[in-house]
């Protein structure tokens, strides 16, 4: 039996439920515990023996290319492009020319560890099957769709809405043979999308589930970014370690001696933390973040290149990249209520959301549930009310 050393990473989607954070950065580039999701995926694949990586890119693809070439310079990465977001099956079809007979497929926008990949491959190699699909038991099967198993074989994978709340769900790690491409050709396109899971019944051989005992998180909603960051830090610190050492504060960050940095805070390279600033537990600062004097940041994620000016207070807040939070601006913590995909999500542990490049002026008060869109400018002194979304542009 030959080793499986090629993997296709599906990273073309936007991650619409994370909007408006995803305007400029696709979901695989969203940071949890200070690392873009796709880094966990690449680490998992490499640790599981994958040497050739094919990444299907689409929405804001250059962000993924630019990041991976810098972060994984020694890895053999091939990029193929999905021009229109026409489903996971269509995405995989783009990689058809770039894969050998047997290969791994993973979602590029879910956090996984090497165990997920390794055990799925082992299950595939341990029996004569056409494909293996990694599944997990979940209480939120209605979010993901149920995997129907009969006599140890997968028959169908139901839609999100179908199936019970409790059940086996598809976690987006597969091993396929190249027969999947024939199956995809026979699969019906539904609502304009060709779904990878819809092709499973069309495979000529047996499809079996793998139940790997590994890490799987899907940061589907903005508040998940905060929650999963905490879970990774407490339960899986090895996923954010550099080599053997767990780097909390990057060497190149400059922290004033009077600043307070609590445990469970991650500070990226090039950050500047001014006098009297307080970084409380659960906070992550991406690279080159500047925190002004006497600002307090509590359980918040701040994206690369963002400036938080003096005396600002942020709690349970997700801030994108290259944004500005003005002097004395406040964003109190959750719970907040958010409408996503036309559904109201109440009492989520998220205060407010500030997208990439937004400029929140001095003394602005953000209420729980406020969402500031990319490039939006909130003039100083304004209050952005509950559940209010400020789209791109200027609020007067």
């Amino acid at each position, binding site marked *: 039996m030959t080793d499986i050393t090629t993997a296709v990473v599906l990273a073309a989607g936007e991650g619409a439920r994370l909007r408006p954070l995803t305007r400029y950065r696709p979901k695989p580039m969203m940071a949890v515990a200070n690392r873009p999701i796709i880094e966990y995926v690449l680490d998992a694949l490499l640790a599981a023996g994958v040497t050739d990586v094919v990444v299907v890119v689409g929405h804001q693809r250059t962000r993924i290319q630019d990041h991976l070439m810098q972060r994984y310079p020694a890895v053999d*990465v091939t990029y193929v492009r999905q021009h229109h977001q026409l489903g996971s099956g269509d995405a995989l079809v783009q990689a058809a020319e770039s894969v050998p007979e047997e290969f791994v497929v993973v979602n590029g926008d879910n956090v996984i560890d090497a165990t997920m990949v390794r055990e799925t491959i082992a299950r595939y190699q341990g029996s004569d099957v056409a494909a293996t699909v990694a599944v997990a038991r979940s209480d939120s099967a209605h979010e993901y769709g149920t995997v129907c198993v009969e006599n140890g074989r997968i028959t169908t994978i139901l839609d999100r809405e179908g199936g019970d709340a409790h059940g086996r769900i598809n976690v987006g790690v597969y091993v396929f043979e190249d027969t999947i491409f024939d199956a995809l050709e026979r699969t019906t396109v539904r609502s304009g999308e060709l779904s990878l899971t819809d092709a499973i019944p069309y495979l000529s051989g047996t499809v079996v589930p793998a139940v790997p005992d590994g890490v799987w998180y899907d940061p589907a909603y903005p508040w998940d970014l905060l929650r999963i960051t905490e879970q990774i830090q407490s339960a899986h610190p090895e996923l954010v370690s550099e080599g053997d050492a767990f780097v909390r504060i990057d060497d190149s960050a400059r922290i004033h001696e009077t600043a307070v940095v609590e445990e469970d805070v991650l500070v990226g390279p*090039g950050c500047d933390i001014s006098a009297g600033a307080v970084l409380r537990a659960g906070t992550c600062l991406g690279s080159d973040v500047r925190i002004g004097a006497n600002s307090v940041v509590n359980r918040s994620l701040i994206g690369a290149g963002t*400036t938080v000016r003096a005396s600002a207070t942020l709690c349970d807040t997700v801030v994108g990249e290259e944004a500005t939070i003005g002097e004395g601006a406040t964003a109190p913590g959750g719970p907040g209520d958010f409408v996503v995909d036309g559904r109201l999500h109440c009492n989520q542990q998220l205060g407010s959301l500030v997208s990439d490049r937004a400029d929140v002026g001095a003394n602005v008060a953000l209420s729980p549930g406020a969402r500031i869109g990319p490039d939006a400018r909130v003039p100083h002194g304004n209050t952005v009310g509950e559940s209010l979304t400020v789209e791109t542009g200027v609020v007067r």
Partner: protein
Amino acid sequence: MCGITVRVGDGDAVAELLGGLENLEYRGYDSAGIALQNDVGVSIVKREGRLDHLREELDSGSLHGSIGIGHTRWSTHGPPTDENAHPHTDCTGEIAVVHNGIIENYRELREELQADGHVFTSETDTEVIPHLIESGREEGLSPERAFRRAVDVLEGSYAIAAIVDGTDAVFATRQGSPLVLGRGAQKYFLASDIPAFLEHTDEVVYLKDGDVVRVETEGYTVTNVDGEVVTREVERVDWSPEDVGKAGYDHYMLKEIHEQPTALRQTVRGRVDSLSNDVDLEAFPPGTFSGIDRIHLVAMGTSTHAAMYAESLLTENGVDAGSYLAGEYATAPPPAGPCTLVIAVSQSGETADTLAAVRSIQGTDVRTLAVTNVVGSSLTRECDGSVFIRAGPEIGVAATKTFSSQVLTLSVLAERLVRDITGHSIENTGSFFEALSRMPGDVQRLLDDSSARSLAEKYLGSDAYFFIGRNSCYPVALEGALKFKEITYEHAEGFAASELKHGPLALVTSETPVFAIFSGGDDDTKTLSNVKEVQARGAPVVAVASNSSREAIEQADDVLLIPDTHPVLSGVLANVQLQLVAYHAANELGRAIDKPRNLAKSVTVE
């Protein structure tokens, strides 16, 4: 400008030599060739044209050997033909030589050798070298002594590698041209530049001028000018081979344009503190430049435009600074003394003209400072101090990210210079520092939203392309035009906006789009008048401007929008838009964007 590769060790050398040449193709690509040492003696294959021609020839698999030398050529003496391609041999065909650089006294040497009965087959300066070695061999010298004696009579700048039939070794030396040694597992490499062997090893030995190295499968020996065995430190490079891959982009140039946010972050990281408005250049603490009263910036090509940018920033803040084309500076240097600082700007640190400018003042009490991308390059060794731009490897012949990194590095350096020399800070320090810190994000924003592609397509087929700007936007106009002509082969010129009506205006018609660069500063009003002048002659105007240049945006026929920033730094952003315009125009025209005709990445001849 040429590239050399050498490979010595276990196994067959052909594939690794070709791979090395491919990675050096940016240094020149008129012709290429390799020579191998094997059972039947010295075998040579060389072809005019791109490396593909040589590869096709070698694909038959007829040529083998574990020791080989290779060369990719950019013509200086004699046109690109099979005969003029390297390697060159002596009369017997037993000695083969590759060479980068220029042998200045080759005419005399050639005449002497011809008088002794040597027969020459090419028009190159290089061919004297194998014949010189041959005559040493005839006198009974060992290959190594014959090589050393040949090198002793050469004048000029060169890096040379030679093989001699019957000796399982390569002999090499350098004088004024780059040559680095790579130490792999059971094999060794020599090359003009590290990417040639980076996929096989990251352990590198930088050879010094005058060093002669003998490389065998078992190891290597370095001897200095006096023939004494010396130890040269083995250093590890932190580039990886895929740093020089294309990462899913069609061209290195586009990849490198997109790398700018990352490159600029590395450039400014740790050097700019926008919260306390301070700069930190470790090797140059405050006071380093006290006592300096005049600055000369010397550079060539794109680096000149970065130097001019710095000149404008320095003079605006009360420092007496001037920028010079290094090639001119070397031949006609202006007055300089102990209070002069010469800043030499070169991406590669190997630019021959720039090195010549620095050498022209060596031995005087003038202080010199290198601003370069390459650690260990000749420029860093010849200047009193160095500041690195930290842009990472750049492969596209047309410089993109290194210009932006040069400007930002020089801007940080300018703050130190202005403070040390005048006692004040750069005007509006707070917003200047804030803008420096924000530059990586601003470039990313621009890249995400740029309309350069459709604009480039719209104006394709024009008679000529003009670029105008004033103050710090003047070098950007020159750089925009340089980039455009380099890769599109279309006629493009940059002018100071004020100069337009003193001549160039005669060229302006409805078929010559004019790109006008606006800084958002006080000088915009004047540039706007110049825009109206060209519009009156029917020329379409593309304003490269931010929203703070509202009048310009309203007046122009088309706009390439840049994020709002400090007026001094607007030019960096405008330049990125112009890089994209040049790229998309060249791509539409089907040009060889990464290897434009007649050009080489770093020009190591004067």
